[in-house]
Structures are given as C-alpha cells and as structure tokens.
C-alpha cells in the first residue's frame, strides 16, 4: 500500500511536471471545442472550395448528436494515439534509465508501482474525458440548437468511453513492462488497439471486445436513447477481467525484470 500511495502521488507530479497531463488534456479539450466549430463551418468551407452556388447548409444537416459522434470518433482515433505516445514509456523508460533502482532497493512493491501508475492515468483520463464531453456537448448545443441530446446519454457515453480507455491504459502499461524501448510498446499498443475491432468483424466475439463500447456509444448518440444491442454489462465485466489480467501480468513481468 505504501508503494501504491507513493507512486500514485509521484505519477500525479510527473503528469503535471513532464506535461503529460497538459498534452493529453489539451488534445481532449481542443477537439471538444474545435469539432463543433469545424462542423458548423464545413458547409461554407465546402462551398468556397467547390464554387457551388447551392445552399450546402440544407444538404449537410448536423445535429448535436452528430457533433458528439464526430468527437467520439476523434477521441477513438487521434486522442488514442496521443495517449499511447504519451504513456508508452511509462515502465520501460523508468527501467531503462535505472530510475527504479532506488525504489526497488527500498523494497518497493511492483504491484504498488504498476497499480499506482494505472490508477493515476485511469482517473486522469476519465476526468479529462468528462470535461471534454461536457465542453463538446455545450458547444454542439450552442451551434446546433435544432436538436438536443439527452444529458443522461452523454453521461453514459462518458462512462463507457472511460472504461474503454482504462483498458487501453492497462494494455500500454503491460506492453511498456515487456519492451525495453517505449517506442515498441507504443507501436504494438497502436497495432493491438486498432486491430481488435477487426477481430470482432471476423469472429463472433464483438461484444466481448473493448471497442464494442465505442460502437454502443455511437449507437446511443445516434438514437438519443440508452438502448444497447446486447447487455453492455457483459462487455464491462469482460473488460474488467481483461484489465485485471493485464495488470497482474504487468506486475508478474516487473517481478521478473532485472532493472540494474
């Protein structure tokens, strides 16, 4: 518990002072603000590019729900990459740079180290996502006032996308414990995170994959109603088990790792 608390606090400081929180937070917030504005300007930009005299506003109808869906897509793609590259060296860099020598020599628990790091970024990214969606919801509402999305739907989207990112964080931590260089952890994380949805298209395991939560977020935003294809709790339970397995494996890898 001492190691967990010490690393939770240390990671919080590091997140601030090494600008990781700033990079991730700014990426999430910037897209939250810019996405609705870009969607609002899209018809005018297209009109100016193509010299079409037609009123494109009539053809391209954007609602608050569509703006939120667009933001969700950006979060799942660009922000995911930003998070992966910010966290890819979370364990590998510390091991490579021998930063763990003093903590290990003081008997630091590897479970405490791994869980401290995981908890810090799980909380931080969930908080950023909450702010991001709230800001996006507000701006989209201001710019597209014709249709409103139920706020409860947005809260469910925040919850589900946070769970999706919690899985990604535990995956990045595991790969960072396995690889000596952070870049390999980053590249393999990207590969796994973006290829997993394909697996759902090939095999009948779609609802057991983390990406299913993003699919369902899209769906409930489109319907403006909290109804899922299957019981989403099955997916959440599955992800909870994956996260536990990933974290336990990270601890196991760190236990066997020679860091001197």
């Amino acid at each position, binding site marked *: 518990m001492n190691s967990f608390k010490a690393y939770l*606090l*240390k990671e919080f400081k590091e997140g601030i002072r*090494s600008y990781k929180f700033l990079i991730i937070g700014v990426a999430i917030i910037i897209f939250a603000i810019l996405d609705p504005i870009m969607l609002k300007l899209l018809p005018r930009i297209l009109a100016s590019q193509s010299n079409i005299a037609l009123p494109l506003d009539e053809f391209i109808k954007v609602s608050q729900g569509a703006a939120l869906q667009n933001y969700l897509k950006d979060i799942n793609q660009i922000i995911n990459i930003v998070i992966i590259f910010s966290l890819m060296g979370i364990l590998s860099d510390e091991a490579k740079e*021998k930063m763990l*020598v*003093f903590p290990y*020599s003081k*008997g*630091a628990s590897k479970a405490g180290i791994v869980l401290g790091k995981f908890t810090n970024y799980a909380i931080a990214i969930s908080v950023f996502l909450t702010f991001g969606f709230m800001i996006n919801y507000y701006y989209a509402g201001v710019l597209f006032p014709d249709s409103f999305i139920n706020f409860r739907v947005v809260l469910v989207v925040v919850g589900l996308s946070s769970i999706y990112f919690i899985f990604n964080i535990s995956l990045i931590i595991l790969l960072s414990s396995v690889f000596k260089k952070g870049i390999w952890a980053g590249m393999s994380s990207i590969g796994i995170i973006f290829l997993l949805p394909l697996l759902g298209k090939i095999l009948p395991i779609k609802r057991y994959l983390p990406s299913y939560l993003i699919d369902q977020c899209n769906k409930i935003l489109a319907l403006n109603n909290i109804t899922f294809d299957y019981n989403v709790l099955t997916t959440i339970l599955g992800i909870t088990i994956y996260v536990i397995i990933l974290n336990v494996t990270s601890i196991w890898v760190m236990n066997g790792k020679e860091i001197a």
Partner: protein
Amino acid sequence: MIELKELYKKYGSHIVLNGISLDVKKGSVFGFLGHNGAGKSTTMNILTGLINYDSGIVRINGKDMKSNKNEIMKNVGYLPETPKFYPYMNAYEYLSFIGNLSGYSKKEIRNRSKELLKQVKLESAEKRRIGGYSRGMKQRLGLAVSIFNKPEILFLDEPSSALDPEGRREIIEIIQNLKKQDITVFLSTHILNDVERVCDEVVILNDGEIALQGKLNKIKEDYILPVYDIEFENSIENIKELLLKESWIYNIHEKNKLISVYVKDRDTAKKQLLKLVSRFDNPVTSYSMRKSNLEDIFLRVVNKNE
C-alpha cells in the same frame, strides 16, 4: 551479517561470478575491490535484490535472500555508481517519495529529510530540481536516499569515483561516521586510498573469482613488501637486466636515472641490494626504501591471476 556461499551468475555463456564466497561481519567497513568487469557491480546488485543469481547462497542477517527479499530490503541501503532520480523532483520531494515508499509518517519524513539534507550538505539546494544538480550533488543526494531508512547494512558502489577531492573527503567522513553508528558498510571502489582509510576487511575480485580476502592489516603484513628507490648519477642502461637476474627481485620500474626495485624477500634485499648496486660503475646519488601500498598489492594479485 552478509554471507555469500558459492555464488554463481552468468549472462548467456559469460560467467560473471564464478562461485564467490565471503563473510562480512556486523559493524565493519568491507572493501570490495576489482578492476572493471571483475563482477563487483553484479555482486552488489545481487546483494541489494536488484538482480537474481543462478546458484549459491546469499544470506543477510541470517535470512535467505530468495525467500526474504522484501524483509531484507527494509534494513538495507544502496547507493549505485550513478544514482538516478526523477529529474522534475527536488531533493526534498525525492526524499519524501522514498519516505512514503518506506511507510514513514509525514512528520517522520519531514524530520528525517531535513536531517539528511543537512548531513549531505544539500540544505541550500533542497528546493532545486534534481535535473539541475551536478554529479557530486546527485551522489550526495544518493547517499541521503540510501541511508533514509536507517539501514543496518549500506552498499556503496563507487561512491566517490565521480567526486572532486573535497567531495571524496566528505564521503569518507560520512562513511567513518556510519562506522561509528555500527552500520555495516560494503564499499566497492577503485580508489584504493579510500579503502586504506576506512576499511577493516577487503576482498579483491578478479574475473568473477575472489583473488584475495582478509583483514586489511593482515593483508598489509602478509603482502606488503618494500620497494627500493635508487637514483644513479649516470644513465641506467643494462642495470635492470642485471638486477632481474637475482631471484629475490621480481620487478623493476625505470624512469630517467631512477629505478624502483620490487623485492620478494625483504631480508635478503636488506643485506644484498646495496652491495649489488655498489658494484655498478655508476655512483648512487640516493637510496631509499618505501613501503608499497594497497595499490601494489592489488596490481600484484590481479596480475598474478592473469
């Protein structure tokens, strides 16, 4: 206090430690010597639980390392050769981090950090980020970190190699203070002068094997042989060859008109050397005897094994 028996460690096919055994007594300062690649840091890393070993027994305070690693670590301090810190923290924050890891209360952390920062003379720099520290400052902070938990055993890996003479003197003083506090110090160093100043016992490690082990005074008694420095008036051509024919002389160093004669048998040397050099048609302008030091012993032991 520290007991190693038949300790083996290899990386791939390269044997780093080839069955070393040693015993370190409580409260002693134990010098661990050897040239680069001899296996010193590997031994230190095994003793501090940072790396595993292939076979053998490692006991600290009577407890087996493999089954009691975490418990052992609570009573051990380690200063690596190049201590690494989180560069965005300041010295006080890093010590607090170590205090939190070790389960100290906030008050204990504050008091212990202040006490240690004063001891290693980093009080004025405690709020500066460690990333901006000089190597000497990092070494001093590393020492503070290593003794934060008031360890019974302290492992120091080349603690003064990166320091200027002033810094080295300070580290030696700190080690001497630790000895007074009955802390067992396991000191790995290249600086043999430091060993002579603080160590009670030494081990010389060579190619993963122990080449020499014992109390420093006893080793000096057994191994230290006199060196005769003889200066001639004229050039010293052929003198080296002539002297080396004597069985009781084992080495000669020449420099300009000065020769240093290393002897195997001090009694014969006392009687014969002066007679021998007086036969040369080259007047002696000075003749003196000096005691060889630990460095000579080290070189002799290591060269004998090569």
